[in-house]
Each structure stands twice: as structure tokens, then as C-alpha cells.
């Protein structure tokens, strides 16, 4: 069995693949939260890995995760300058299945979930990213801070504001 040496860079086949298996899904989901579009998210995520490979000599295994996210963000920024298109955030959510068949129960839950998804679409991007990475991808505030390269306090502030917005939106629907 191969061990990853301390100084191992991402240039080794198996290391690169492992990094891919570890982080692709998370990065792709993060980008879905950002763009609201699966195809674009997967494209951008793949491109981030391509750039990682191109610069593999200068990226250590521990830094790979944050490198990928920073690269993806930068990619998105560049693309935006080209496109100048306002991206409408499409709802991509599945719900974990609720099997109980009681009609009243299902209807109430569905109603609320719909309100919630609508409200999520109205969140500004900064808040939306923090909220969804925390609630859906179970990333801690610390992990999110590292990915976005902001402080934990900033993450908490965005989460707090996200909730205020959601509360207001849901109250209005």
C-alpha cells in the first residue's frame, strides 16, 4: 500500500486521484450553491482540478482543498466579467424522502419546504453560500472560513444575516 509522504505533492497520479475523490463532490456542490446551475458548477469544478494539476508542483496535499476552492472562485469571477449575465438561481434541491402518508402532514411539510426554497433563492450570494455549506454540506464555520478565506466571525455574521432574511421572506410568503 502506498503511503503519502509528508512532502508529497499532488503531481503523483494516485495522490491527484485521491484529492479528486475527496473534494470533487464538495466543490461541485459549493459551486451549485453559487451558480444555481449543475452544468456550470461541474465545469468550473473540473477546471479547478485542471489548474491544480498544472500547478501541482507548488501545491502540497494539505493545501489542495483550499487551493481548489480559491481557484474555483477566481474562475467564477473571470467568467462573470466575460459573461455579464445575471444568473438566475435555479432550485436544485431534493428533499430527503418523507414517507409518512398522512395527507395533512405531507402538505404542511411540503408547503413549508417550498417557502424555504423560495426564500433561499432570495438570499444574497455571500449569505447563501455560508448557509447552504453549513446546512447541506455540514461544513463547520471554521471550515467555511478557510474555504472562503474570511474570518470565522465573518462567517457567523453572514449566517446570522441569512437567518434574518429567511425569517422575513418566509413570514411574507
Amino acid at each position, binding site marked *: *500500500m*502506498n503511503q*503519502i509522504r509528508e512532502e508529497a505533492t499532488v*503531481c503523483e*497520479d*494516485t*495522490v491527484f*486521484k*485521491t484529492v*479528486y*475523490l*475527496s473534494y*470533487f*463532490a464538495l466543490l*461541485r*456542490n459549493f459551486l*451549485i450553491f453559487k451558480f444555481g446551475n*449543475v452544468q456550470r458548477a*461541474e465545469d468550473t*469544478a*473540473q*477546471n479547478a*482540478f*485542471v489548474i491544480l*494539476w*498544472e500547478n501541482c508542483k507548488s501545491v502540497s496535499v494539505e493545501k489542495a482543498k483550499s487551493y481548489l476552492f480559491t481557484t474555483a472562485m477566481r474562475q467564477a469571477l473571470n467568467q462573470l466579467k466575460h459573461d455579464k449575465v445575471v444568473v438566475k438561481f435555479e432550485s*436544485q*434541491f*431534493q*428533499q*430527503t*424522502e*418523507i*414517507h*409518512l*402518508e*398522512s395527507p395533512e*402532514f405531507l402538505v404542511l411539510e411540503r408547503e*413549508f*419546504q417550498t417557502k*424555504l*426554497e423560495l426564500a433561499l433563492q432570495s438570499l444574497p450570494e455571500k449569505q447563501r453560500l455560508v*448557509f447552504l455549506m*453549513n*446546512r*447541506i454540506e*455540514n461544513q*463547520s*464555520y471554521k471550515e467555511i472560513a478557510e474555504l472562503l478565506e474570511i474570518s470565522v466571525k465573518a*462567517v*457567523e*455574521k453572514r*449566517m*446570522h444575516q441569512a*437567518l*434574518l432574511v*429567511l*425569517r422575513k421572506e*418566509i*413570514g411574507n410568503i
Partner: protein
Amino acid sequence: MIQKTNLSEQYLSDWMSDQITDAQFQCLVSTEDFMIYQKIKSGSSQLKLGSPDIEQNWLELSQKLTQTQKKSQPKVSSLWKYVGIAASMLLLFGVYQFFGYTQSAIADIGSTKSVLLPDKSVVVLNSQSSIAYSKMFAMHRKIKLDGAAYFEVEKGKVFTVKTAYGEVEVLGTKFEVIARPDWFEVTCFEGKVKVKSGKNATILTPGKKIRIIDSQVAYQTETIPQPLWITGESGFKSVPFYVVLHALENQFGIQIQYPEKYKKVIFTGSFTHSDIDTALESICLPVNLQYNIKDSKVVLSETALNQN
């Protein structure tokens, strides 16, 4: 008038990450707000994104890599060959334990065991029963059960109990599951419970019980608030005798021999867990049997009254 304390300016994010409790949070917001925030909290944890096609994306990525002018590129081959190596490497990333049923609990003969699950649900195992669940339990609330257990489930994502004889799904409720080779039974004490067995599914409301013995499905009503064995007794209502004897065997770790013709006699009654003699008496008396204990073997025989 609601006072915003100086706890933190981010009390909402603190509460979302459970740094402050519900009780503390309730002091900071109105009742109406609390209810809605609660729903946001639980509703958002039920959302999921579909998973990406890992293999497909890898192929597309590999194609992009061959387009770049690098001399050495990762070999463009199927991912799955490497999953074996990747899996052992993932050990270093701590990801491999995600969905394996690596946590377990067992109750020995004659004792019960209470387990607190990562989502704060409680399971009480009856004698000779075991459960297994994943370390990532809070994400997918699935638990394997062999034997009998009583559950008090915290509200949240769907909670599934998998047994060899059927599956039970709930959202947040109190119920009991018995999963023994000759006896599959689910009782709902609070909330709603969905039971799946084979191609059939049924919903139980509080006080309702479904029992499948010998492929026979029966519904009953239960009036007690929790199983008797939690407080050291086993109760049976219109149950075939052999099922009662198996339960006795499980409880005391004994083997019971009895006249064949008593196998399907319908029995209603209970026995205590604390003393084997008292237990055997309460089983034998109603059906006119007597018992004889030798080591851990018990022989039941008809009393003189019956031998005509």
C-alpha cells in the same frame, strides 16, 4: 418586552450551530419567531443535493488534462481500479468511515441496555439484542436491529430501523420493535410509524401494534405507555405459546422442552424478569403445565389434572 442580551451579536448563528440551547434562544426571540426559526433549522437540514457522477466527471476532467500541453499527465483510465488504493488512502483523510455501520451496542442475556444516539435519540435494548449504526448517523439516521428495542426518536430527518424481517420509518416518535426469527412486531406509543415488510407497508398511530408471526399479520391495540420489559416484565396478548417460551429462553438463557401440542396454544399473560421460578410459574399456571429445572434445561409437562 424581549431583551436582547449581550450573549453575542450573532445569537442566530450561535443557535444554528448549537452553541446556545433552544431554551437560551427562546429568551432572545418572540414565540412566533422561535417557531419559524425552528422550522428553518430542521427544514434546511432535510435538504439534499443530488450526487455528482464521479466517474463521468473524472472522464471529462481527464480529457481537459490531455488538452493541456503537459508532458506528464495522470493516466486516463477508469477510476474504479484505483478505488482500492484510494480507499486506503482516504483513511488518511478520515473519510472512509462515512457510511459503514461501525458503531454498535449489545444487551446481554437478562439485561437491558440504554443507548444515546448521536442525534440525541434513545434506544433501550431488551435482553439478547443488538443494534449497529454509522458514525455519520446524524446525516442518515439508519440503524440495524437484531432482537427487541424501544425507541424514543428526536424530531429530525427520517429515522429508519432495519431488521431482517422488515423496516420501520419514523420522523420523531416513541415505538417498540421486536425482530426475532419467529416474531416481528412493531408498536407505536407516540407519533406515527411506518412499517415495511416485504411488499406491504402500514402506518401505525399511537396505541396501535402490528404483529407478524408465521406470516400471519395481526393488528392489536396497546394501552400501556411503553413496553413492559423496560420495567422488568414481559407481557403477551393472544400470542402463540412457543413465542412466549422463546422469549423466556432469551430472557434467562435457558432451554425449554415442552409438549408439542402446546406449540400454538394462544397465550395471554406476562412473566417477570427478576426470578426464573416466578416467571415459569406465571407461564405454566394459565395453561395447566408444571415445570422442572435441571441446570439450564427446563422441562414442561402436563399436570395430573390434564392427564386424562
